[in-house]
């Protein structure tokens, strides 16, 4: 005997709802275990486009997403005293030695995105580092022109290097 349409619909719904809930639970749990989990509410990934600069909002989103590389082009001492969380030091004045030190950590981001900053709007260390990296074949290297000043003025978190 064929089952009625309601019995079929009930069986369909049970299976689909069961798998949907299992997927939602597994999805949320596995997201929580990721090193850089997605936030509960979507934040657009900053558009890191060749030749463009990042404003504070986009730079902050890139730092929060943790999927790009953030470079501090100021002298290394400044980086040690305080820097954007996760930023690595690649000072303009000591570019070659610092580049060699960073090695694989930089190579991993050859296709970008890489955001470079220095002190404030008036410094050009970040532009210099951007240009050097671009000449070495790195792609999607952008500058956050506001720099350390804009970051700290906005009251955003800082990280200190431990010797």
């Amino acid at each position, binding site marked *: *005997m064929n089952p009625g349409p309601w019995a079929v619909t009930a069986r369909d719904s049970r299976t689909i709802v069961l798998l949907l809930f299992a997927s939602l639970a597994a999805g949320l749990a596995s997201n929580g275990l990721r090193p850089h989990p997605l936030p509960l509410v979507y934040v657009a990934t900053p558009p890191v486009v060749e030749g463009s600069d990042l404003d504070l909002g986009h730079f902050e989103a890139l730092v929060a997403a943790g999927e790009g590389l953030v470079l501090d082009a100021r002298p290394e001492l400044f980086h040690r005293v305080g820097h954007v969380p996760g930023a690595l030091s690649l000072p303009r004045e000591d570019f070659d030695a610092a580049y060699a030190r960073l090695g694989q950590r930089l190579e991993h981001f050859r296709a970008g995105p890489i955001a470079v900053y220095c002190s404030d709007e008036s410094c050009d260390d970040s532009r210099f580092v951007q240009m050097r990296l671009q000449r070495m074949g790195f792609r999607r290297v952008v500058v956050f022109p506001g720099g350390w000043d804009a970051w700290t003025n906005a009251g955003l978190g800082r990280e200190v290097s431990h010797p």
Partner: protein
Amino acid sequence: MKTLLHSAEILLRALVGALFVYAGSTKIADPRAFADAIHAFHVLPVALIDPLAVSLPIFEVLVGLSIVLGWRLRENALSAALMTAVFLAVLIQANLRGLDTDCGCFGPGEWTALRSVPPIVRDLALLAGTLFLRLCRPAPG
């Protein structure tokens, strides 16, 4: 005739199921890219994008595996057909609105062979396959 139908079912189960497993796993590997792809279609409120981006790929993998294994085939084929119909509707509305967006169907590193087929054609073929799988077995009594 019965043998032919059975062979077609097994072949389609392997094809359709594997495609769903592949589609899901590429998105599991890069949930942020999938969230960006969903966002680009402008069809969902922002609050739903990330929960969907982390759970839908797992649902795709579970449905795909169930289809390959033949577990609750009718129900899982229906899930697959409904998902495909929704993807198709989203793609068509994006085309009609002139949105220039990547399909996002198979994650960022999509197979070249899959890329050569227009997404709408691909989804229509997939929809036909899932409906066949839904109907090839009688409803359990």
